């Protein structure tokens, strides 16, 4: 069951990823990205990280995609077709990416990974909550706070950058 589900999701991710980076209609690209993200959330479900999957869905699929679509609306015409990238540029990028992928995958395949230890992750809400706000071993209170500060700073920054100059 999970195996089938994994392959379906993996197939979706790869196909929609490719579509995202090749589609010449920008809005469609955004929608394909949405599918990729949903599929990734599916993967998280398969791995039994329900909370993470939920976060992925709400934040990524919900928040970020909406943001992107808004900005597309602000800057481009929806019907507009993007011009195709130059053949030279595409070829060089393909070579670099293929080479990178081959190197990485061959390394992965040549590496002798230890077998699955078989333990189960306790990703219950309680465990997550304790860990996230814990400050002892395995506690993430400090990064959590830093991230929140970062979010605040980013919010301010975004507002200031995007603000229309008053003159």
């Amino acid at each position, binding site marked *: 069951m999970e195996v089938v589900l994994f392959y379906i999701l993996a197939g979706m991710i790869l196909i929609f990823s490719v579509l995202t980076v090749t589609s010449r209609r920008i809005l469609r690209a955004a929608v394909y990205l949405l599918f990729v993200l949903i599929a990734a959330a599916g993967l998280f479900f398969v791995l039994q990280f329900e909370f993470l999957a939920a976060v992925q869905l709400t934040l990524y699929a919900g928040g970020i995609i909406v943001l992107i679509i808004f900005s597309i609306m602000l*800057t481009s015409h929806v019907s507009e077709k993007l011009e195709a990238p130059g053949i030279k540029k595409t070829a060089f990028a393909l070579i670099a990416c293929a080479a990178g992928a081959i190197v990485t995958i061959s390394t992965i395949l040549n590496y002798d990974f230890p077998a*699955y230890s078989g333990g189960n992750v306790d990703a219950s809400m309680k465990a997550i909550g304790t860990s996230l706000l814990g400050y002892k071993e395995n506690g993430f209170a400090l990064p959590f706070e830093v991230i929140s500060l970062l979010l605040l700073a980013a919010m301010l*920054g975004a507002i200031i950058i995007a603000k229309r100059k008053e003159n």
Partner: protein
Amino acid sequence: MIDKIGIEQFMILSTLMFFIGVYGFLVRKNLITMLMSVELILNAVNINFVAFNKFYYPQNLQGHFFAMFVIAIAATEVAVAIAIIISLYRKIRTIDVEEVDEMKY
């Protein structure tokens, strides 16, 4: 269960996704689509984090939390990036990355 799927599969998946993202970053001319490519890259990394957590460190939640933080940072990054893109668009009426070479030389 998932022991039938090796960690290699997850990693190959994330590698492919990562390089698709890189490809997109390299060829797309529109800044927003480049941003979407970055999202792909980040997601590929997330998958890796989660897979490693699941397979080798089930007793802890590091991978899980890192994935969460990556999502959070991705959100801020998108916010700032879009702010920059919009203000750029206001200024030079385009978001084509090849036109944006103010920092040349």
